């Protein structure tokens, strides 16, 4: 009896290996994904509270005020959801592509997991105690309780461990597969972890060497401009890490789901390299209105951030070409007719597709904001909040949702049932409508002057502020729809993780086109690309940082502004 059971188990293990499924690695990804979606649930409810407050429908109690909620909402969704999802997803890809994670890599990722969780708990405690209402950007001279920063530092260390694990995994595979290209999804993962690794250095310097000595009182003052610059070198890169993660699914997974082939392997890898090299320097577009940077340098930085538009446009072109080719192969006709051949009823396609569409207005808004004169109008207004709910809340997050409908069944050894698929399609439309309402209202009311990061006020019944109310009401309506979307999505994820019928799900990776040209090996030489990246970073940062440090104004003592 026992032997037979062993035999069956062994057989099962073998088929799993053939499918590129490794039980231990799946458990790791499952834990990461579970945390990500719990963060979505909690963060979503906090978002709803904010939306209702902004519309004047809800007054938050003094023991849990608007700015505490906002700080937690930002951290949960910007840091926890995205970081945990990205790591869970790419570790699943590394495991599947590269023949399973090495035991030491898996261990690193687990240590990283717990270090991040401890860090996160440490960061949340002072927020709940109203000792850290500094928002996710924690700009000095606002100073939170020291424990908050220690928590952030631990999160950084946790993510670093995952980066190092990924590097070890990829290096090991390459040693055993000389001269081969790293499989495409793992290639994206490499790019993402390289970016994360270097971007985190900037916040690490900010938090460890500037803020922590300052909040503990070891030094009296802090150089505010340097701190902001280091923050955005990281923050902006983080934004593009999400984008690169979403793009990986667009290039590699979506074509497979619609039954097509992947776009040029070479150009895909070029997009990854271009984003890695040019990314960090884009950080300055968050400081267009900051003082202390002269116009010439700002101009150079606008150029550098618009340069990122180039790989984005390549992406847009590539994807629509893939869609059209696939649809025509299936018999789609005419200029518009081929649209009918797309699998609109499949959430694994629909969600990322709408995500891609939303990137068109989102990207256009971003270009507008990069323009100095236009940014003067929208800086620090609700427009900006509308912008990143469109980019992050729609383009990125909806892609993550779309991924979850095959990734969660894959790592759980279960299947996507038609019921859950239907639920997903409904969820996708609710999210789309909700986000259009909310983000549209935010954009418009921002143009009318409504500030971001400000709880509800009528400024003594000032006429201008009263004029915002209808839009803020629409914002709240959108937010309410979104929370329905959040609940459906989180339900779907945990259903697929624990309750869906057992079975095998494929990890969808599209093949290359038949007549593809050979990709040159240069794309694998990360050493070169990293050096080029460092030089580009030096080009962008040496001038302003020297200025800030050599001609520094008097520094600032810590302030508790709340």
């Amino acid at each position, binding site marked *: 009896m026992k032997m037979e059971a062993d035999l069956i188990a062994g057989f099962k293990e073998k088929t799993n290996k053939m499918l590129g499924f490794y039980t231990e690695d799946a458990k790791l990804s499952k834990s990461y994904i579970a945390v990500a979606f719990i963060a979505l649930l909690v963060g979503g409810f906090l978002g709803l509270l904010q939306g209702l407050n902004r519309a004047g429908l809800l007054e938050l109690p003094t023991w849990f005020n608007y700015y505490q909620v906002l700080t937690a909402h930002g951290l949960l969704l910007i840091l926890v959801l995205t970081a945990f999802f990205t790591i869970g997803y790419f570790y699943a890809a590394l495991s599947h592509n590269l023949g399973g994670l090495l035991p030491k890599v898996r261990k690193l990722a687990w240590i990283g997991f717990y270090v991040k969780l401890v860090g996160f708990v440490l960061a949340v405690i002072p927020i709940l105690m109203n000792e850290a209402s500094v928002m996710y950007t924690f700009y000095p001279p606002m100073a939170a309780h020291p424990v908050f920063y220690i928590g952030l530092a631990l999160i950084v260390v946790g993510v670093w461990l995952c980066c190092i694990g990924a590097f070890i995994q990829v290096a090991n595979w390459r*040693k055993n597969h000389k001269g081969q290209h790293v499989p495409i999804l793992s290639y994206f993962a490499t790019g993402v972890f390289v970016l994360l690794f270097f971007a985190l250095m900037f916040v690490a310097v900010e938090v460890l060497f500037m803020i922590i000595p300052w909040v503990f009182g070891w030094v009296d003052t802090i150089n505010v401009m340097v701190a902001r610059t280091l923050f955005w070198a990281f923050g902006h890169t983080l934004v593009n890490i999400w984008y690169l993660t979403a793009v990986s699914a667009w290039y590699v997974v979506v074509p497979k789901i619609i039954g097509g082939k992947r776009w040029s392997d070479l150009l895909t890898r070029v997009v990854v390299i271009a984003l890695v090299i040019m990314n960090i320097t884009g950080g300055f577009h968050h400081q267009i209105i900051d003082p202390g940077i002269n116009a010439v340098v700002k101009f150079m930085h606008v150029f550098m951030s618009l340069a990122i538009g180039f790989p984005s446009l390549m992406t847009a072109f590539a994807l629509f070409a893939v869609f059209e080719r696939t649809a025509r192969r299936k018999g789609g006709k005419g200029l518009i007719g081929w649209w009918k051949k797309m699998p609109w009823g499949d959430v694994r396609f629909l969600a990322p597709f709408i995500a891609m569409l939303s990137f068109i207005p989102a990207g256009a808004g971003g270009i507008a904001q990069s323009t100095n004169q236009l940014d003067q109008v929208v800086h620090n207004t609700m427009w900006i909040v509308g912008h990143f709910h469109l980019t992050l809340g729609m383009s990125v997050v909806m892609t993550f949702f779309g991924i979850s409908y095959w990734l969660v069944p894959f790592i759980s050894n279960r299947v996507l049932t038609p019921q859950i698929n239907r639920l997903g399609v409904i969820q996708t439309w609710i999210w789309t409508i909700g986000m259009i309402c909310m983000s549209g209202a935010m954009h418009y009311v921002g143009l009318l002057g409504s500030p971001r990061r400000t709880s509800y006020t009528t400024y003594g019944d000032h006429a201008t502020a009263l004029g915002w109310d209808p839009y803020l009401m629409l914002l709240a309506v959108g937010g309410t729809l979104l929370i329905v979307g959040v609940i459906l999505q989180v339900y779907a994820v945990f259903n697929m993780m624990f309750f869906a019928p057992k079975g095998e799900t494929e990890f969808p990776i599209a093949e290359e086109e038949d007549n593809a040209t050979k990709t040159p*090996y240069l794309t*694998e030489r990360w050493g070169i690309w*990293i050096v080029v990246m*460092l030089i580009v970073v030096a080009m962008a940062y040496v001038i302003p940082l*020297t200025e800030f440090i050599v*001609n520094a104004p008097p520094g600032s003592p810590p302030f508790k502004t709340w």
Partner: protein
Amino acid sequence: MNQSFYGLLLWIFLVAPPVANFMESVMVIHMHMQMPMLVIAGMLMARFFQKRFSGFFEIWNSNGVPGITLFIVIMVYWMLPRTMDEALTSHLVEGFKFISLPFLAGISLRDSWKKLNSFGKNSIIISFTVLFLGLGWLYIWSPVQLCNNYLVFQQVTLGWGFLTTSIGMVVYLGYNFFIDPSAYE
């Protein structure tokens, strides 16, 4: 042919007075963007000359050493504060900059680099790293203004430009030293 044409376009762009004036207005952009881009323009154009005058390069630069020597001489010349100053005050010297960097340094670098063995390549990179560290040190801690045309502050910025570039080169050397590509390729 194609890349030579793009090199020519890049060169024309860099020489165009508004672009040149802008780049020369900031010391670190002058030395660390304009000058390297002139060299890159020359490297792109090199294809054309290599095809056109292949015999010449074969006779005079068969092992790459003469070419790389010319490259080093030109580069070191343009790293002196004095010469930068003069490029801003005298049109003749500015003209020499626009000619010498692409056509003497850029072309000879392209023609020589592949001909050098790895010992040669590494020694070149190491010497430039050391040179950059030295110049970074000089520009940051020099108590006096070294260029008439640029303020001390601009000089300090340039110094940091040198230091960060040399850090980039150290990373590259470390990568080359510790990582054996044949284990992966």
